[in-house]
């Protein structure tokens, strides 16, 4: 910093260095992104190009694969199922998780917080086996309630864990001012704290919805004809011996697209959410 260089030369060298840094960064990330490019290319290919293993839609790009997937008898129903279950589990998790996160932060219940962390770390198979057996006896297999409950297991601990730092960051003065005004814990929560963290809550809700949308293991065991979600439906389509890769990749693009679009819109919050628990704040 203290080296005496001519300012212009230093700036030019800085620009060159930035350019080089950019090239290196892109070179490191591009291989990872090429998987998405490949997915889109195959989805746009005609069957002949796919079976020849071509890396480009040689005989012309086509949207036939997408059209076939979308006009497939049930694809829309699976999307509606995913939406309904995703929204329901997100709403339940917000309603229960935000007050819980507030309590953890407000009364410094760190030990309770680790309960939610451990719930996030249990292997899904440890729960889906007993759930399947219990749900069978309760006639909850292939029901929206059963599916939503299983997804709440994913979204609720996540929302609690993500929201705790937001409540932690509220200045202590706010609570003291509320005390002076004679507000109790409940009024402080509803009129001061909750409104202040609503941006964070919105981000948590979006991420929770994505996690529900992406959920596969619980859905593959607990859903059936009625409540099948998109990931399960597409997987079953593939496992019935179909090797129609054009349609499979088109379906993959259609499932992933909403998630990618959402994630690019709320990118800053996604980083907070995905690293929740590892990085403070």
């Amino acid at each position: 910093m203290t080296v005496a260089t001519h300012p212009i030369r230093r700036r030019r060298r800085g620009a060159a260095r930035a350019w080089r840094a950019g090239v290196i960064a892109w070179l490191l990330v591009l291989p990872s992104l090429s998987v998405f490019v490949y997915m889109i290319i195959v989805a746009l290919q005609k069957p002949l190009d796919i079976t020849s293993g071509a890396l480009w839609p040689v005989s012309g790009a086509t949207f036939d694969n997408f059209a076939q997937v979308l006009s497939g008898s049930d694809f829309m129903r699976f999307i509606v199922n995913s939406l309904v279950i995703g929204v329901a589990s997100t709403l339940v998790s917000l309603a229960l998780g935000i007050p819980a996160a507030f309590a953890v932060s407000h009364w410094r219940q760190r030990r309770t917080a680790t309960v939610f962390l451990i719930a996030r770390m249990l292997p899904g198979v440890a729960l889906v086996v007993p759930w399947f057996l219990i749900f069978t006896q309760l006639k909850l297999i292939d029901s929206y309630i059963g599916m939503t409950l299983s997804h709440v297991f994913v979204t609720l601990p996540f929302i609690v864990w993500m929201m705790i730092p937001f409540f932690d960051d509220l200045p202590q003065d706010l609570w003291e001012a509320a005390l002076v005004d004679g507000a109790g814990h409940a009024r402080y929560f509803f009129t001061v704290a909750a409104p202040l963290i609503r941006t964070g809550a919105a981000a948590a809700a979006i991420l929770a919805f994505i996690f529900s949308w992406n959920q596969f293991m619980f859905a593959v065991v607990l859903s059936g004809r009625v409540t099948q979600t998109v990931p399960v439906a597409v997987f079953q389509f593939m496992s019935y011996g179909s090797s129609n890769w054009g349609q499979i990749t088109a379906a993959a693009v259609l499932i992933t697209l909403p998630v990618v679009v959402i994630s690019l819109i709320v990118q800053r919050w996604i980083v907070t959410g995905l690293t929740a628990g590892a990085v403070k704040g």
Partner: protein
Amino acid sequence: MTTSAPTAVTTRPRRRASREIGFRAAFLGPALGLLALLVVVPLIYTITLAVQDMPASLRGGTFVGLDNFAALAGDGRFWAATARTFAYSLSAVVIETVLGVLIAVALHQEFRSRSLLRSLVLLPMIATPVAISMVWRLMFQPQLGVLNSILEAVGLSPLDWVADPALALPSLILVDVWEWTPLITLITLAGLAGLPSEPLEAAMVDGASPWRRFWHVTLPMLRPVIGVAVLLRFIEAMRTFDPIFVITGGGPREATETLNLYVYQLAFQYLRPSYAAAAVIVFVIFMVLCSLAVVRLSKGEKR
């Protein structure tokens, strides 16, 4: 909390304390209650199953004590799956850590398209796992897949990837690395952003090379952050299900059968609920031990 007048010390704080506990219960109760319903009840049910010999019809089980666990201890397939789970998780996490920190350092530099690249880099971990697993399945295809096209283009002989028992697990590790390196990158980036600049400036004044600055100044300061990231990722890697289930289903034969897959097979293919329950319990014990290690280490970091 203790600012009330001295005369009221005996009665008012106590009433207030009990009201406070009531509030606490109202705020925390529903979430904890639902979680207990979803986690504790099934786990207790699992334990009762594990000590019985329950037929798949779930009617008329007989108490067998710890027989299922004894059988598990002698089950070669279970131990092979356990070893595979640890091998998969360890190798994936080691590679992800090296690559993730490297990419984080590259993305920490100043350049024009940085914010765009930062939002693109996280796509693999946010994209629907089943969808991208199907794309990888196609990429691994010996005849149609892009990976062999690349190998042939650079003059190498094609591979069988997930169809080759020796290559199947490494291939799945490749998928894991692709999917989850961004997590290490994001956490490391957050750590880099929070580093104090004085030590680096001091090292620059001392004339340390960029590499030495990174290795001797930046990396030691980042170690706690990276440590937590690695442990979190390790636990997550142990529970990996979607890509393995979609791409290989545990095969060829049992070459990629991790604990998750084995338990799934026991419960839903072989229809042995009691034996599966015993395996689940041992699996959960492994996971809880690892989770406790994470909690302890992340506490140590804050102090």
